[in-house]
């Protein structure tokens, strides 16, 4: 984990946290000012807090160099601006935790690399697709619908279902680009599925790009330019195919791209020579 894990919260640090996060008045004033200077009346409209309470909050924020006055308006200082960005992150993060509480609770999240766990707030606007009694295959059918029109897609796969293979074959047959990072085991099953000739040809054409990774991966993710999906392993160690976190937000898709690059660096590229 990349973050320093402190053993305890120092008094001073704790007071800072409390000052910013335990007061909805100060938090809301900061959020309200995030896009530029505002007059008292505008802050009141945004926050639905009374003027006198706002003024009191502002003077506390001024004392800490987070807000300053400019004419009749209030504006975040450069430090206030930095803090506001992080505060918004934090709120989105907690929103993401609460919204998908069961998803985080029932799956193994410890293997998600720290840097990516830290930025889970990108999923604040995501949703979960679940298998239902009527349609046990729901997460998969959604996949297939989504990839039907894509020009390319990428995936990090530590597991394989026949339907993944169907999807990959569909993409390749239709001359679209596929990039996959696979664990050793999955790579071997993929080899069995395609004929060697077909496989070689697609790799040569550059439509099929494969990387083999020699470490266990505890998440499955597929993404393209307009969606990202994230599937996790259950606490008992098995992959849980019944739930998928899905997002169409640009920041979530970028998260996926960076995760892909992160694993790609730890992988071996498969080309004709080492096939």
């Amino acid at each position: 984990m990349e973050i320093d894990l402190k053993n305890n919260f120092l008094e001073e640090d704790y007071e800072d946290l409390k000052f910013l996060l335990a007061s909805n008045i100060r938090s809301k004033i900061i959020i309200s000012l995030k896009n530029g200077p505002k007059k008292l009346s505008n802050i009141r409209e945004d926050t639905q807090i009374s003027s006198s309470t706002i003024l009191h909050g502002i003077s506390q924020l001024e004392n800490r160099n987070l807000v300053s006055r400019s004419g009749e308006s209030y504006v975040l200082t450069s430090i206030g601006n930095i803090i506001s960005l992080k505060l918004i992150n934090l709120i989105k993060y907690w929103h993401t935790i609460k919204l998908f509480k069961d998803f985080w609770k029932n799956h193994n999240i410890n293997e998600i690399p720290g840097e990516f766990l830290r930025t889970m707030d990108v999923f604040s606007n995501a949703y979960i697709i679940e298998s239902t009694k009527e349609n046990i295959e729901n997460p998969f059918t959604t996949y297939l619908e989504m990839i039907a029109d894509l020009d390319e897609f990428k995936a990090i796969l530590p597991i394989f279902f026949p339907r993944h293979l169907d999807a990959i074959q569909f993409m390749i047959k239709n001359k679209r680009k596929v990039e996959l990072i696979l664990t050793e085991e999955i790579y071997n099953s993929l080899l069995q599925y395609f004929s060697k000739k077909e496989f070689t040809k697609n790799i040569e054409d550059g439509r099929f790009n494969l990387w083999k990774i020699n470490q266990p991966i505890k998440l499955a993710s597929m993404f393209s330019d307009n969606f990202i999906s994230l599937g996790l392993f259950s606490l008992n160690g098995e992959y849980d195919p019944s739930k998928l976190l899905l997002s169409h937000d640009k920041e979530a898709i970028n998260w996926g791209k960076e995760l892909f690059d992160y694993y790609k660096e730890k992988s071996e590229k498969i080309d004709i020579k080492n096939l």
Partner: protein
Amino acid sequence: MTDLENLFNYYDFVQDDLKFMIKSRIRLNILSSILEYPKAMKEIKEENDLSFAAISNNMKRLLEENMVIKVEDKYLISQIGFLKLYSLMDFLKLMSTTKKFEELWLNHDIEGIPDFLLEDMGALQDSELIKANYADIYKTHTNFKELLIKSKDVCGVSSISHPDYMGIFESMLNGDANVTLIFTKEIVKKVVLSVDFKALSEVILNKNLRIRLYNGEIPVAFTVTDKFMSLGLFNCDGSYDQNRDLISTDKSSIRWAKSLFEYYHQKSEPLTIKNLAKIVM
């Protein structure tokens, strides 16, 4: 719904959770002491120097809120508890970094740093703020030079010109250092006027040096190499603050500065003889 309304709704949705965590330092300390390993009540008590009553009361609340799980006689942090604590520590890291270098950020222009890197400012936690003092007015500059000479892979972005730098880079290039510099048009113009065109053409054709052109203002000046990073800002009045330089040789600061370089790299283009001629005309 506007972005702002959305955020206020998010805030209202999570504020009770936040307050539960924040309002008790004891609970925060209990959670951090079981972050890595499950522990028995006794161990937690000793580590935190708390009364048994205080721990057991708060532990009860933490169990109720599903932040902690009890397995036999040990307590371990739940996954939800872990995520929440993790995010608070990350927030704290940013806060302490802004505080530590308060005089660098306050009254300075931070527009040159994109939001995604401002948010990640906690990465600079272990950097050092070098201040010029009267005894050695060029202290920041001297430090910079010493570190630079040792580097093999140098990236720089600047909208200010230091007469010395051309010389330093030149001597580095005679070694085998790899240098990529991103300049604004104004700097390129200044450099062109100060050296002859032939010498500059040679520099452009040098394989170890890549000069790139950034179309616009760059209100930040920084260098990042395999060994260190160094960052300077402009005062709010538009002048460059020569007295303060954030310097670091630690990995996370270097990674941060590399991302900042990447950001400007993507928005710049190579300086060729052709576009050089255009600038000078």
